[in-house]
Structures are given as structure tokens and as C-alpha cells.
């Protein structure tokens, strides 16, 4: 399928550069989505959408001029290109001839979600609701959400770039509330990927059950301990810590604005030698994966920390040009209504040799942080505060009582240095990452990781 004929794309780029510019780009997108949720036993808010639209941008020096339009009508594309060009003050530049589209790796979608009858999606929600309620009499509320979307994109650049991608994502989430004697606790879980309905064919109700079990466990939670303690961070969603406290600081826009504590540190030993971390947008069927990024650069695995050394930042085309390097395929945008900026795809620590039991077994008294709620990171210093939404005490090498109200206070650089064990059980969870007003799917993950010491702020 072609969204914009390459011949028309060529004319749009020519119009966009009518008054000069270093680079012009046309980004076209066709997106469709469907979502439905269940709240309080009732299936509600079924919603479908189909959009087409395009964005034209012209870059000149450090300035970016862009426009976007709903629909892909020829006159609208040419009009928006003309309007954007008016911001530039110079002589016309000639775009290079567009190359043929290059094939790239794609992610296999076995059963496109749009081919699955909508009724089955509603039934899935009900089955999840039932499973959550069956988990215990104290479960009082369940909220289950299902969403699917497909984005077909095309990118044409005045440097001759031509690329297309077809992305399907699917996600099931559960939020379960349990109540006992006025105490109210919430547990959540999700399953999602750059994948089709096949992802939800095997025991999807487990998502609801897990959320329910978490909520129920928290009913017995004791107040969190405080002080400097060893912390074992759980696999999967525990990777939020890496994403927030390290990953954002590696995005090249933050680095170039000197708003990152990781600026100027390439090659420095920031973590022990057994620590390696990747951003990998090519990981098959992972939530944050794509074929090419939103500038047409094929996604790939970028080693950001190699044996403890900081080895790469994450680039889009503009920031790569500024640093004289290649884009790492991290130029992403929420939709055709926004500009691409450097964003993580799937960011995770590489698996190590230990097991989770060994990591926990080595702790006399500490905290097992499975999942995080809200958090804040000051990118310029790396200081962070995270709320632990699911956490347990570790006593004498064993996970004991659940704790409530724990917070982790620390610094990204310090936390990296203090890693003293990594397990082999890598898992990638489905996160949504917000930056610059744009929300994109981002895989967060890691195996179990132990940090020698972090400040735990508690309720006690």
C-alpha cells in the first residue's frame, strides 16, 4: 500500500525547500485503533478511530519549521509545504531524487487484531474480570483495558530517503482494587507487544489474576523500612528505574543541551564490568520495537553501557548530524502531529549469571522493589525519587512481608556504580513514556538487579 505516491512526495519536498533549508521531510501516516474497557463489571467505552495525515518539516541550521494536516489530499500536502517554506529566508534548494524504498526487518503479526471479531475482545474483558474477582473475596473492583492499533507510515527525505513501516500493537491491562477494613490497595499488570492477537491467545486472564494477587498481597503490607538498604529490583517493570534514571539522560537532545549528567562521559566506567545495557528497537515483537523509526532509519540494538562503560547515546537524525555520527534509529514521534525527537525504544540491562534467588539470598535485610508508581528524575543531576508500588521486605535472605509507601531516593550514577548482581531472567514490560508532550510505547525491562545500597524512604 502506498500512502503518498513518491512522485507527489518529490513535489512536496521541492515546495518545502522553495525558500531554502538544509533538509525537508514528508511523513505520512495512516493509523487505526480500537479500544474497549471494563469497569465495575460493565463493558464500556468501545471506541474505534481511523486517521490519515501528514507532517512536513524543514530544518535550517538550528531551526525547525513544520506543519501537519489531517488527511492526505494532494492540495493539502502542497499547501502545508508552501506554508512551512514561508518561514525560511533564502534561495530554493533542490531535493535529491528519492531512492527506492529499502526492505528492512519487520515484526511478524500472525493474527492481525482487526481480523478478530470485536465480540471476542469484549469476552476477553469479562473473562479477566471474572478471574480477578475469583482471586479473593476482598477484591472489590476491577478495571480491565484492551487496546490495539496499527500505524502504517511512510517517510520521504530531501536527502533521498524513502522508507515505510507497518506496525501493529496490542495491549491488555488490569487494575484491581482489594479492600479490607477500610484499607484499600491496588494491583496492576499488563501484557503487550508489537504483535497480533496471538499474544493474547494463551491464558490472557493471568494478567487479571496477577493484578488481583498483588492487590491482595498489599492488604497485609507493613510500613516500609527507612535508611540505607540493599535493594533488589524486580525484572520487567523494575526496568523503569533504568529508563528514568539513566535512559532519558542518554537521549542526545538532553546530552547536547547539557541537561544530562551523562554528557561528556562516553567511555567512562560508570558501572561494574558485568553490567551491560541496550536500547533495542529491533527486538522481535517487543512493545517498543519498530521496523524503521519515524525518520526511516532502520531500528537496531545500540549498546549504551558495555561492560560498565558508557558507550553510546541515543540519536535521531538531527542530533546525529550535530555530533557527526549516524542515527541510532531512535527518532520517534507519537503521530504525524508531532516532530521526531530522540526516544528510547526497548531499554534493558543484559541478563547476567546469577538467579533472582541468589540475589535475594545474599541480603540480610533489604527491600525487594517489584514495581514502581510515580517517580521524578532531575536529568541535569541524575537525582531521582521513585514510589515503590509493589515491594517486599527481605529478611535473612528471604522475601517476607509486603511493604507500603516505600520510596527510593538516589542518583542514577550512584545507583549504576552500586549494582552488585544481575540475574538471567530478562523480561520486557509495556510502558508508555511521555516527553515533550508526546507519549510513545516504550519497552522497559531488565532481569532482577541488586543494588548494594540505596536510600529507602518509608512510612515508618
Amino acid at each position, binding site marked *: 500500500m502506498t500512502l503518498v505516491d513518491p512522485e507527489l512526495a518529490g513535489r512536496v519536498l521541492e515546495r518545502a525547500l522553495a525558500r531554502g533549508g538544509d533538509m525537508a521531510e514528508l511523513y505520512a501516516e495512516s493509523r487505526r485503533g480500537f479500544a474497549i474497557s471494563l469497569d465495575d463489571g460493565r463493558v464500556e467505552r*468501545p471506541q474505534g478511530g481511523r486517521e490519515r495525515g501528514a507532517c512536513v518539516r524543514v530544518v535550517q541550521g538550528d531551526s525547525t519549521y513544520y506543519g501537519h494536516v489531517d488527511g492526505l489530499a494532494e492540495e493539502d500536502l502542497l499547501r502545508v509545504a508552501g506554508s512551512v517554506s514561508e518561514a525560511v529566508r533564502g534561495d530554493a534548494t533542490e531535493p535529491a531524487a528519492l531512492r527506492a524504498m529499502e526492505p528492512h526487518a519487520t515484526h511478524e503479526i500472525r493474527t492481525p487484531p482487526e481480523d478478530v471479531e470485536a465480540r471476542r475482545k469484549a469476552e476477553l474483558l469479562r473473562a479477566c474480570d471474572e478471574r480477578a474477582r475469583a482471586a479473593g473475596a476482598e477484591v472489590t473492583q476491577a478495571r480491565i483495558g484492551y487496546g490495539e492499533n496499527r500505524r502504517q507510515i511512510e517517510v520521504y527525505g530531501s536527502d533521498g530517503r524513502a522508507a515505510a513501516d507497518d506496525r501493529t500493537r496490542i495491549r491488555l491491562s488490569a487494575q484491581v482494587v482489594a479492600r479490607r477494613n477500610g484499607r484499600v490497595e491496588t494491583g496492576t499488570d499488563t501484557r503487550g507487544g508489537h504483535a497480533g492477537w496471538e499474544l493474547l491467545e494463551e491464558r490472557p486472564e493471568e494478567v487479571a489474576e496477577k493484578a488481583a494477587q498483588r492487590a491482595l498481597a498489599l492488604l497485609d503490607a507493613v510500613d516500609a523500612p527507612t535508611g540505607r538498604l540493599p535493594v533488589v529490583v524486580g525484572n520487567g517493570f523494575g526496568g523503569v528505574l533504568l529508563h528514568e534514571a539513566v535512559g532519558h539522560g542518554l537521549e542526545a537532545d538532553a546530552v547536547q543541551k547539557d541537561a544530562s549528567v551523562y554528557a561528556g562521559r562516553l567511555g567512562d566506567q560508570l558501572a561494574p564490568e558485568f553490567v551491560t545495557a541496550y536500547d533495542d528497537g529491533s527486538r522481535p515483537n517487543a512493545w517498543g520495537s519498530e521496523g524503521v523509526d519515524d525518520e526511516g532509519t532502520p531500528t537496531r540494538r545500540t549498546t549504551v553501557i558495555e561492560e560498565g562503560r558508557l558507550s553510546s547515546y541515543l540519536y535521531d537524525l538531527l542530533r546525529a548530524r550535530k555530533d557527526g555520527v549516524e542515527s541510532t534509529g531512535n527518532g520517534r514521534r507519537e503521530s504525524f502531529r508531532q516532530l521526531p525527537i530522540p526516544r528510547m525504544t526497548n531499554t534493558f540491562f543484559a541478563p547476567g549469571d546469577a538467579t533472582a534467588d541468589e540475589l535475594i539470598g545474599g541480603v540480610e535485610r533489604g527491600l525487594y522493589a517489584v514495581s514502581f508508581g510515580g517517580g521524578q528524575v532531575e536529568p541535569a543531576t541524575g537525582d531521582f525519587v521513585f514510589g515503590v508500588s509493589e515491594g517486599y521486605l527481605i529478611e535473612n535472605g528471604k522475601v517476607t512481608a509486603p511493604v507500603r509507601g516505600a520510596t527510593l531516593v538516589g542518583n542514577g550514577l550512584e545507583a549504576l556504580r552500586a549494582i552488585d548482581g544481575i540475574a538471567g531472567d530478562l523480561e520486557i514490560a509495556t510502558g508508555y513514556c511521555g516527553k515533550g508532550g508526546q507519549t510513545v510505547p516504550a519497552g522497559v525491562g531488565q532481569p532482577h538487579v541488586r543494588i548494594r545500597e540505596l536510600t529507602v524512604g518509608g512510612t515508618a
Partner: protein
Amino acid sequence: MTLDDAARRAVEAAVAAGASDADAWAEESTSRRIRVYAGEVESLSDAGSRGIGVRAFVGTRAGYAYGTDLSDDGVAETARAAREAAELADEDEYEGLPEELGTSDVSGLASASFADWPTERVVELALAVDRAARAPEGVTQVENSVYSDGRGSVALANSRGFAASYESTQAWAYSSAFAGEGADLMTGLGVGMGRDAGELDPEAIGTEAAERALALVGARQPESRRCPVVLDSFVAASFVGFIGSMLSADAVQRGRSLFAGREGEEVAGQVLRIADDGTDPDGPASAPFDGEGVPTGRTPLIEDGRLLGFLYDSRTARRAARSTTGNASRGSYRTPPSVGTSNLIVEAGDHDLDGLVAEAGEGLYVTDVAGLHSGVNPVSGTFSVGASGRLIENGRLGAPVREITIASDLVSMLKSVLFTGSEARWVPFGGSVKAPPLLVGEMAVSGS
């Protein structure tokens, strides 16, 4: 196809596909945004939006679909998708179209002079804001100066015969200036808004940003105290915007509002009067009808210190067995209507700022708060936010202060409002709010 036609045909198509009722919201808009940094245009954007959202009902089941294709076929497909979605939903006895359809008489939403401002001319205006912000001595940098405007048309039709449309325009600009050096870098914001660029005063906007930043240079952390606090219009508007979201019937019915069950109770100082008014000619959120075809109006929320009521759309109104207040709002054609504030207006009093400061005697003048939205518990109303501003000494503004935390709960704060200022102004962040400065009798201010 015109927007009116698209909306009407979508409704017809939904009904033909088996919907018992339907409404359709069609919209077309353009907007521009110019960001100036260091005296140069750093970015410029020109955005167009065009699409339709269809809400279909099958009895009391509701479904929604939206699309960008406004051709006959495209509109019919969106309508069919909404009808199919409705099939999936469970029955909800409160769902349905509103009974109270109509339009109110609101004029002046669109400026005839809007078209006199081509891009080149508004670029000049944005540059002028930036120059004015950088001009005063002591301003170290201007983070950015932004001009933005938009014009849009919407048409709404439903299967009960409602069909209406309107056009509106909007222009605003702001600048964010820095004064001081290093760890003492302080920021100040200047804003202005109107129906077209001609209603903005670039000089005033830039100067305000500079003056607000300069006033904070040399700020120190004060000692902790309990004292009277004057909130300036920006800060008052931020609090009022948050309070407005708590007055939506949806938040109340879901148990997520501290005002739930307190209708008729005293929740604020006697002088405080807050209303939601979707018909104010200057209000950025004004319109003749809401997101589901109900005439907009003025809904008093707090008067003489008493909580008079909440804001409703038709669904929450049905659930509460009362009438909608015309507060169904739509973010865009991509989202179904839900309860929202239109313009929140705090009635001005008769003390000018000097008068409020004089009444405060010894206290604090707060010009900036941080972390309001994450710092307030919506159910208990307790909050703790970072703040900066100036001391009030002997009834006058004194030395600048920073790194202050003000902690209280919203109702206690509202109840101790002693005076409202005479200089109310529109503040465009956190919704659309018009607020004067407020004097709060006593608050806990923690510093060193």
C-alpha cells in the same frame, strides 16, 4: 462537503445502520505556533485538523468512532463503526442524548481581523515579545517567547433534530525570562491573550516576564512561619483550576472529589464567588453550545462561601436526577464528550494589590507554585507545593523568597480567603480561568 453536511450525514448513516440515537461532531481548524529563542525564530508550526467523531446509541448502549475522512463514504464508515462499537458495550441506564438541546447567544467568538495577521506579521509580533523581555537590565536570558493562534469551526448534529455550528478564533503569547546567575537563576512568566494578534500587547507581555523574574533576584529561603498569604492571579488561577476539576460531577460520582456530598455546605470564605461561565465573550472556552448540543450558561459554584453545586453533562445529570449544566466538553473530534469546566471565573473584589498587601501586614506574597497537580490529594484536598515570591513586611512588599513549601488543605485554604483583589485577569494555563489575587488569612509556610 461542509461541516454541517458531514455532521448531518453521519447522524443519518448511524441511524440507517441501526442506531436508535446518534450525534456527530465535525471540526476543522488551523493553528500556528512560533517559538523565538535568542532573538531568532527557533521553530514555527502550522497545523491543520479536520475530522468527525460519531457517538451512536443502541438503546442505552453507547459506542464511539472517529475519522479524518469527511467524504460521503468516509463519514458513513465512521458512523457504522460507532454503531458496531455500541453493540459491544453493556447497557448503561444513564447513557443517551440530552433533552435540553439548544444554543445560547454568545457573540464575539471570532475576530473579523484574524485574517489581517499573516505568518510574517505574527513572526514580527513574537520577536517583539522576545525583545521586550530581554530589554530590561538584569535579564540574563529569555528561555523562549511563544506566539500561538488558531481559528476553528465546529458543527454538531444529532438524531433529535439538533444542528448548529460556530466559529471561533484565539491568539495568545507568553514569554519566560531568566534573571540572576547560576544557582540564583530565577524565572518569570508574562502572558497575554485575545481573539486575534491585534489584541495582544507584545511590549507588556515581554516586560511582565522580565519584571517577574527580576523581582525574585537574590531570593533567600525564609524562616518557617504561619502567616497571611497573598496569592497573585497566576497562582490563584492554578488553585481555582484544580478546584474546578474537583467540581465536575464525574469526579464527584466516582468518589474522586473532596467536594462529594458537601453541596450547600460552607467550603470557603464569605467573599469568595466562583462560577463556571461558558458564555463570557472574552472566555477562551466560550461557545454557544457544549459538546452534546446543550446551551452553555453560567453556573454559580461557590457563592458567599457556600458550595452551590457541580458541573454536569447529560450522563452525570441523569445519574444525579437533575439537569445538565451544559458542561459536556470535547478535547477534539477524537474524544467523546465528558464533563469539563468551560471558563472558571472568580469574582473580583475591591482591594487592589497594594490594598491586599496592606491588609496582610506581615506575610508572604506568592507568585509561583510548583507541583500543584501532583501535590494535591483529590480526595482529602491536602496539598504541599513548592513556592516562591516576596515577603510582606509592614504592609508592603519586601525581600524575594524561594524554596518555600506551603502546605494546607484546599477547604481550609478557601475558608480563610479574606479578600479578593480588584484586578482579575485571564490565565490560560490549567484550563481557562479568570482570577484576581486572593488574600488568605493564614497558611503554614515552611522554609528553613
